C-alpha cells in the first residue's frame, strides 16, 4: 500500500486533466449550430422539467421547428424541477447562464415576474396575441398589465366515478351521466356512502369519496361553491370569503367528521402515500368510487387498466341548478432575464405556443390547448377527452395571478389539512391564511 507514491500523483494529475478537458469541451463552429438546423440560425437553449412522454413530444415539435426555421435553432435540456421549485432557474439566471426559453408553471408567472426573473415580452409584440388565447390563460401570463409568458397547455379537473363499484353497491348511476348536467354534492354523498367498506378492525378498505385528495384542492371546492380568492380592487386575498368557508366546512371538515377523521387519514396514507406510483392510484385499484382528478389519468387507464369501467362528469355542485365549475392550471413559455439569444428564443416560443406547435403537443400528450381555435377542434381529442375540452374548459376558472401565489397555495393547503383533521374550524384557519398572505402581498400593491 504505497499510496501517494509518484505514480499516485501522476494518476491524479491525469484525472484532473481529464476533468478539465471534460469541462472545456463544447464551443461553436460555423454552419448550422446543431444537426437538423438551417445554417445562419441562432442557437437558443430551452429548459423544461418535463420528462417522457411529454418531453418526447416537445422534441418532435422542436425537430419540426429546427427543420423549417431560418431564425432559431433550439436545443432542449431536461432539468430537474417541479411546478414551484425553480432553484435551478433562479440560480442560473442570477449567474447569467440561464436558458433562452424556460417552461414555467403558468400560475407562477406573476410571482417570477415580480421577482425580476422574467423578460417583459411587450417589445416582441406578445401583447397582440392576447385575443388568441383563452382568457384565464392569458391573464395568468401577465403581470401588472404586461405580458411575461406565452401560454402553452392546460388541464382541468372533473369528477371521475367507477361504474362497476357503484352498480355493485346498488347505486343508480344515471344521474352521473354528464348529459344530465352536474349532480349535487348531497347526491354524491348518498351514493358514496353505499360503497364504503370497513374491515373487522374498522379500517376502511374502500371509501366511496374522499373529497380532499388528488385534485380535491382548496381551489377546486372554493370555486365550486362560487368563492372568490382575490379582490383586485383592494389588492387583498380573500380566503375567508363565506363561500370558501362554506366549501371548506362542507367538503373537508364535515365530510371528514362523518367518515371519522383518523380512519379516513389512515385510508389516505395507505392508498395514496406520497410518491405513489400511478399503478396504485386508488381509483384504478378499486379503493374508491369517486375521485376529483384531472385529465392526465386518461393515460394511466390506457396504460395500466384499459378495461376499467368508469365515467367522467362535472364536479358536483352545492345545489341543484348551480352552474358547474372547475379550475385549470398548465404551463407556459417564458424568456428569463439575461437570455443571450432572446430573439431566437421568442421566435421558437411563438411557434411552440402557436397553432402548429401547440397542436402537435396537445395531440401527442393529450393535454388541453390554450390556443382558442384549437379548443373547439374536436378532432384533436379522443374518448373522454372530448368532454374535458368541450364542456369543462369553457367553464374553467384559474388561480389568481398574484406575486405571492406559491405562498398563498401553501397557506391554503395548510388550512385545508387543519380543517380535515378537525384541528381548526374553517373560519379560523382561513382567517389565518388571509392575515399571513396579505402581509406578504402588501409590498407588491397596487396590482394592475
Amino acid at each position, binding site marked *: 500500500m504505497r499510496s501517494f507514491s509518484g505514480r499516485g500523483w501522476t494518476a491524479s494529475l491525469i*484525472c484532473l486533466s481529464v476533468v478539465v478537458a471534460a469541462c472545456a469541451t463544447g464551443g461553436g463552429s460555423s454552419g448550422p449550430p446543431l444537426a437538423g438546423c438551417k445554417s445562419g440560425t441562432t442557437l437558443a437553449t430551452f429548459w423544461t422539467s418535463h420528462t417522457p412522454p411529454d418531453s418526447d413530444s416537445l422534441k418532435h415539435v422542436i425537430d419540426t421547428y429546427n427543420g423549417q426555421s431560418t431564425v432559431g435553432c433550439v436545443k432542449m435540456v431536461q432539468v430537474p424541477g417541479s411546478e414551484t421549485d425553480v432553484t435551478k432557474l433562479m440560480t442560473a439566471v442570477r449567474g447569467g447562464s440561464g436558458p433562452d426559453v424556460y417552461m414555467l408553471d403558468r400560475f407562477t408567472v406573476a410571482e417570477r415576474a415580480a421577482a425580476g426573473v422574467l423578460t417583459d415580452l411587450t417589445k416582441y409584440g406578445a401583447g397582440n396575441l392576447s385575443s388568441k388565447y383563452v382568457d384565464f390563460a392569458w391573464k395568468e401570463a401577465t403581470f401588472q398589465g404586461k405580458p411575461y409568458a406565452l401560454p402553452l397547455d392546460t388541464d382541468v379537473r372533473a369528477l371521475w366515478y367507477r361504474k362497476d363499484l357503484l352498480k355493485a353497491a346498488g347505486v343508480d348511476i344515471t344521474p352521473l351521466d354528464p348529459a344530465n348536467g352536474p349532480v349535487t354534492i348531497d347526491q354524491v354523498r348518498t351514493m358514496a356512502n353505499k360503497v364504503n367498506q370497513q374491515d373487522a378492525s374498522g379500517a376502511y378498505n374502500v371509501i366511496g369519496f374522499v373529497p380532499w385528495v388528488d385534485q380535491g384542492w382548496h381551489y377546486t371546492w372554493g370555486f365550486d361553491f362560487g368563492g372568490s380568492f382575490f379582490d383586485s380592487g383592494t389588492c387583498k386575498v380573500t380566503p375567508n370569503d363565506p363561500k370558501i368557508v362554506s366549501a371548506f366546512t362542507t367538503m373537508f371538515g364535515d365530510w371528514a367528521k362523518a367518515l371519522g377523521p383518523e380512519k379516513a387519514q389512515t385510508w389516505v396514507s395507505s392508498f395514496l402515500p406520497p410518491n405513489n406510483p400511478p399503478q396504485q392510484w386508488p381509483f384504478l385499484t378499486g379503493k374508491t368510487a369517486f375521485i376529483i382528478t384531472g385529465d392526465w389519468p386518461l393515460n394511466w387507464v390506457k396504460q395500466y387498466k384499459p378495461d376499467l369501467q368508469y365515467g367522467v362528469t362535472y364536479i358536483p355542485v352545492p345545489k341543484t341548478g348551480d352552474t358547474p365549475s372547475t379550475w385549470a392550471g398548465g404551463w407556459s413559455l417564458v424568456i428569463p432575464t439575461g437570455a443571450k439569444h432572446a430573439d431566437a428564443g421568442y421566435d421558437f416560443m411563438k411557434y411552440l405556443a402557436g397553432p402548429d406547435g401547440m397542436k402537435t403537443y396537445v395531440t401527442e400528450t393529450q393535454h388541453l390547448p390554450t390556443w382558442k381555435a384549437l379548443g373547439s377542434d374536436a378532432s384533436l381529442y379522443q374518448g373522454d377527452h372530448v368532454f374535458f375540452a368541450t364542456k369543462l374548459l369553457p367553464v374553467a376558472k384559474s388561480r389568481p395571478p398574484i406575486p405571492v401565489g406559491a405562498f398563498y397555495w401553501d397557506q391554503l393547503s395548510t388550512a385545508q389539512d387543519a380543517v380535515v383533521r378537525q384541528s381548526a374550524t374553517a373560519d379560523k384557519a382561513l382567517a389565518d391564511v388571509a392575515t399571513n398572505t396579505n402581509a406578504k402581498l402588501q409590498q407588491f400593491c397596487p396590482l394592475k
Partner: protein
Amino acid sequence: MTVRTVERPLAVEQRPRTGRRRQRPLAGLFQAAVTPRVILIGMCVLYVVPFYWMATTALKDNPELNIYPPTLWPQAPNPGNFVSAVRYIPFPQFFINSVILTAGTAIGAGISNPLIAYGFARIRWPGRDLMFAIVMATIFVPFPVLILGLFDVFTKLGWIDTFLPLIVPAFFGNPFYIFLMRQFLLQLPIEISDSARIDGARELQIFWHIILPLAKPAVAVVIIFAAVAAWNEFLLPLIYLQDESRYPLAIGLQFFRSQHNVQYNLLMAASTLVVLPVLGLFLAFQKFFIEGVSVGAVKG
C-alpha cells in the same frame, strides 16, 4: 489510544477470552457462536429490508405493481427492467460523470485535508487555536445560506455548467475531514517530527516522508467518506450543472419521476445499479477502512 491500533488485526480472534469459558466448552460454544449470530442476523434483517424491497421491486413488471398488498417476491421476475432503466436515462454518460466527480472530489479531499490538518496539529503558530475554532464554526453554516453567494463566486470564475464548482472546493479542505485528520495526527508522538527536524528536514519533507505514510489509513477514511458523499451528492450538481450531458447518476434518478407519473420499478432498478459500485467498494476495502476509522476518531 495509541498507534498500536493500526496494526491490530481485524481478522476474527478465535482465542477464548477467559479461563472460565474453557472449562465449560458447550455453554461457551453457544455463547460464542450462536448468540451473537442470532443478534446479528436479527439486526441485519432490519437493515436489509430496504435493499430487499428495492431489488425485488426492480424485478417486478408493471401490472404487478398494482397488487394489494404488495407481493413479497416478484411473480415473474423480469431482469429486463434493468436494461430498460439503463436505456430510460443516458445511464452510461451519467455513470461516467459520477465517476469523474467522485474521483475528482476524492483526490481533492485526500490531498488537502491531511495537509491542512497537519498545519493545525503539528506546527505551532500564533493564532492557530483561534483559526481552528473558525474551521469548526464553519460546520455550523447551513448550506442554503451559501447557495447564492457561492453561485456568484463561481459565475465570476466562469465555472457554471462545469464540474469545477463540485470538485475544486474539495481541494481546499472540509471541516469534518480536517477535524478527523487532526485528531489522528495529534496522536502520533511528537518525537517523530522533532528528531527529523534536528536532522534538518523541512516541514513539507517531514509531512511527506514521515507523517503521511503513517497516516495512510486515516487518509483512506477521508477519501472513502468523501467519495461516498460525492457519489450521492444531489443538491450541488442540481444547481451548478446545466447541460444534461454532465449530470451524475444521483440527479439522473429524478428523471424516473415526471409531473404525473413515476416509473417505480425502473427507478428501483436504476437505484440498485447506483448503489452496487459503492457497496462493492465497501466490501473490498472494509478491512482497511475500519482500521482507518479506528485510528482517527477515537480521541474525540
